[in-house]
């Protein structure tokens, strides 16, 4: 976490130092609408993942990571109250997802289906696929740190229309893949890639997620921005009493794209 904040600070600091501009450019790159208001239409490529933060010690290595999709289209309605400060309300439709393969050790699982529970500790490879279609509604405070740079931060709420969270567990590249049933002294049941155990937790995903959104806009042309945004989920995507995944899982997705400013 500390590293992340430092990275953010570094970006922030760098951009501030470059904000030594001639006064007239503030007007040149200012809001296009009257009263400092306007609309931004955005489209971008979305990449990221859903992860426990920080990574628990049970996760020993991440061997595969590939994003699926993703895309975001949306619209911001903003109003600048002063030269530097303003607010924005936005609505973004997104499709995001990822595939990951991680080596785990002593990973606690408790899976219940049709009233039967398989619980214990798994060591081996856990491959996960997630996909989410939904809409995000952020409320942003915008700081115009230079004529051409805007940084916006604010809370968001996401709603998922369609979601998947499924995967397989099997042996790792050293051939180790097993479940200790119940606890560490229980039966050792080996699980291999040829005969993996599959899971599907989509019904245990919550339809809502909240977090913080960061948007970095750079005005490339009079009406065109390039932007990077980050949606940092702060609420668990899985049901609170869902014991199968013993960690809280947070969606963290970044979008890189272009925007049109009306």
């Amino acid at each position, binding site marked *: 976490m500390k*590293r992340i904040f430092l990275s*953010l600070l570094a970006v922030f600091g760098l951009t501030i130092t470059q904000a030594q501009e001639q006064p007239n450019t503030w007007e040149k790159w200012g809001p296009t609408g009257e009263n400092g208001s306007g609309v931004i239409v955005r489209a971008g490529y979305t990449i990221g993942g859903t*992860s426990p933060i920080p990574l628990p*010690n049970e996760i*020993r290595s991440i061997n595969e990571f590939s994003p699926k999709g993703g895309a975001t289209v949306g619209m911001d309605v903003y109003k600048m109250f002063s030269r530097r400060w303003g607010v924005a309300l936005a609505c973004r439709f997104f499709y995001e997802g990822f595939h990951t393969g991680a080596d785990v*050790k*002593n990973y606690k699982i408790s899976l219940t289906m049709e009233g039967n529970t398989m619980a214990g500790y798994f060591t081996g490879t856990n491959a996960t696929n997630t996909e989410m279609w939904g809409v995000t509604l952020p409320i942003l405070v915008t700081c115009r740190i230079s004529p051409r740079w805007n940084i916006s931060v604010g809370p968001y709420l996401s709603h998922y229309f369609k979601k998947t969270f499924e995967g397989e567990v099997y042996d790792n590249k050293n051939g180790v893949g097993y479940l200790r049933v119940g606890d560490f002294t229980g039966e050792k049941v080996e*699980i291999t890639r040829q005969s993996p155990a599959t899971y599907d937790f989509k019904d245990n995903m919550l339809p809502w997620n909240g977090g913080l959104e960061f948007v970095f806009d750079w005005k490339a042309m009079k009406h065109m921005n390039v932007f990077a945004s980050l949606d940092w989920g702060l609420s668990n995507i899985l049901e609170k009493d869902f014991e199968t995944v013993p960690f809280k899982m947070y969606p963290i997705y970044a979008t890189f794209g272009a925007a049109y400013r009306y």
Partner: protein
Amino acid sequence: MKRKLINLPLLLLTFAGMFASCIGEEPLNAECDIEEVTVMIDNPGSVLAAGYDYSANGRATVSSVEDSICFLIKWNTDVDMLPVSLAVTEGAQCFILQDGEYQPFRNGEEVDFSDEKVQNFRIQSQDTYWKRDYKICFVHDEEPLFQPMDLHISFDHFALNTSDKAAEANKYYVWTEPEFGKNYAGKWATGNPGFKLSKSSANPLEYPSVPLEGEGVDGGACLKLETKDTGAFGAMVRMRIAAGSFFFGEFDVTSALKNALAATLFGQPFKHKPVKVSGMYKWKAGARFQDKAGNAVDRVDAPDAYCVLYRNLDAEGNFVRLDGADVLTNPNIVGLGRLSGVVETDVWTPFEFDVVYTEDIDNELLANSGYSMTICFSSSIDGAYFKGAPGSTFYVDDVTLKCEY
């Protein structure tokens, strides 16, 4: 102006940096298993009976469910102090019970196994939170008698298993057959431990292999084998049914999901020559025969029963154990008999089949436990391949294994 463009790649890099999460410290091992026991014996071949790989000392591989390791020694030999080495989970500590207290145990220490003494060991995990207790002993093999005899399988001696920690209401039944001698009476297995993985909520009488008290031919208990649907968990690992089974051997739950055929370990060393199996049965085929994928197939289910005698050492002297893949086909098989002509019936009906030999029995080998025997009953003939009809029910009672000697 140009300088500012640097910012976008920098931003991208920053995001990438954020996702490169740190991997935490590796947790200490929590398991505390004995994986292998090695006893140093000067001339293992003349001391140990078959059953263990004694080509290199006396060595026993210990499965995750075993907590009692009994080496069999020939009926006419004895052991005394023997150096013992334990292969345990990495980082685990070993203790031996001495004078009522667990003392640290170092590999290679001599342990007193005279007079069939049972030695207690305790293994503590590297993280110190978990422990398991084990017993290690040396017991005498039975002396071969070379007399005609009938061994009865009565299905009257059963109990809930004690090896797992499930609540009483969710345990499964295990059987002993006293006529098979003190070392092998309890060596009867079923597929129940595998079923338990899929249906943890099942009560003891909902398992595929159960005793039915008062329903037997003689008014005692009989064995009821029923092919069961394994529900959502079974489908998850593409093992949609579990046939009821009962056999002389072991069920290795470690392999149950990985390779189910390898989980049924058939046979125990046997010092008799079985020639005929007879008993009583009732049979009802389930309504819907399904293939491995769960699709209905136009086929009527059938039960299975067989008796196999095989040489349990290969040319290099390694212990051979048949499993679901080769129990009827392994070239080490010397005698085989299989049930046929079963009809659907709800009254007790006699059955019998002969064990047919393809080679002569080597009596010296037999006396030294060089042959293993299995006898197996199943409620679905292709149950090992997860093909069968849920509801197929095979009742068995009063089985006699007639031995020429």
